[in-house]
């Protein structure tokens, strides 16, 4: 196995990365994080403006 030192490192890195993704709880990349959502949103949910990029075109609205 030590005949392939680079592949060994590469494979260990990939397997290690896989474990890391589970530990840190990775998920879909398309989720957009926002900060400082005001507490008033709970009283007036309609005022919230989403920062999510995708919106299917065949729905009306923004």
């Amino acid at each position: 196995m030590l005949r392939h030192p680079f592949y060994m490192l590469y494979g260990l890195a990939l397997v290690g990365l896989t474990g890391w993704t589970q530990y840190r709880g990775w998920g879909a990349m398309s989720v957009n994080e926002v900060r400082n959502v005001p507490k008033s949103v709970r009283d007036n949910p309609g005022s919230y403006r989403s920062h999510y990029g995708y919106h299917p075109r065949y729905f009306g609205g923004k």
Partner: protein
Amino acid sequence: MSSQPKPTPKVQALECPNCGGSIQLRGFGKSLSAVCIQCLSIVDTQSLRVLQQFQAKERVIPLIPLGKRGKLHGDQWEAIGFQCREIEVDVTAYQWREYVLFNPYKGYRYLTEYDGHWNDVKPINGLPESTTKGGKRAMKWLNETYTHFQTANASTVYVMGEFPWQVTVGETAQCDDYISPPRMLSSEKTNNEITWSIGDYMTGDQVWKSFEVPGAPPPARGIYANQPSPHGAKSAGWNLFWVFLGATVLMMLAASILMGQKEAFRQDFTFAPPPGPQAEAQAIVTPVFELTGRTTNVEVEVLTDLDNEWAYFNMALINEQTGQGFDFGREVGYFHGIEGGESWTEGKKADSVVIPTVPSGRYYLLVQPEVEAKPGQPPRTIRYELRVRRDVPYNLPFFIVPLLLLIPPVIKSFRKISFETRRWQESSYAGSDD
């Protein structure tokens, strides 16, 4: 003590019996024939008869000058003879060159050169054993198996210098080559006998360094029979691939066992689409729920009772205390009907998303649903359920990582196979030409 010292053998010159020219003898009486370069006569050094006088359109100049010495395997060797030989395959003649190397203590070796590829050849004493390898004809010698590569009839077309046999231009031999890169086992069969030899592949640079030849060696073209593969004799690493794949699978199992996957929130909702085509989307917020443990992911699932409609859920997971929010959206659509006596369905009623690295805390969901019915249908109130789970396995890496792991061994295997295919194209086993 008593013995009279024998005279030290000296390098001699012979007078050519044909033209009187001077023939240098470097082989200390061991050579059996020598060539007079002036008149191209081959002279028998024992009887001093002319064995043959041959024709040549031009004098060939050996790349290693005769008389030059080089170091091989820790010994000095002097180039004392040179010949050009050729084989005919289909209608093409392939010519190569051989140098006779001499050391008065160690005997003879040969250096062959073809298309810039060199071989350091040593005659062997003994008979290799006939065998097979991978279904191919092979020979075994000193615990190494050599696969048959080529059989051809070689004829000598030009000679210069001295030889330890009575060489003649036009003499032929049946040559069989067997390979075990970087070595090659060869046999030469004439009417009287078979001689075996082992060759070790050498690059032009190595030969030039050994013999201190000025300038650059001829460039190597193509791949030679026993040329060692630059992609190494070791495997492409497939064993290691399986190990890593196994590790990835184990990790997948471990993730599904060890991760909490705890339900943090679940509730049913209804949504009545507002009348009118351009109405504002309505938004609601869920009650606050707790997300515990280390910073990890959150799975939000939407399950609906759609019936021939599309629905789009614009959502945000918002931390009540810190104001941190995660925006996302999910689209679902479910349709069914009967056509030509067969019922069909299309789409799905539920969908989910995994939100990454959400710190623990108190959260609520903000949901803005939109519904679109098929044209001609009135919009109806739909029911949907939201389920939130904390700490779930994220499966995408488990599909991407094996593909990434495949890349190096696939590339290596491809290169090795490609090299060996090109090597064997020069053999007797290559299919129809061009």
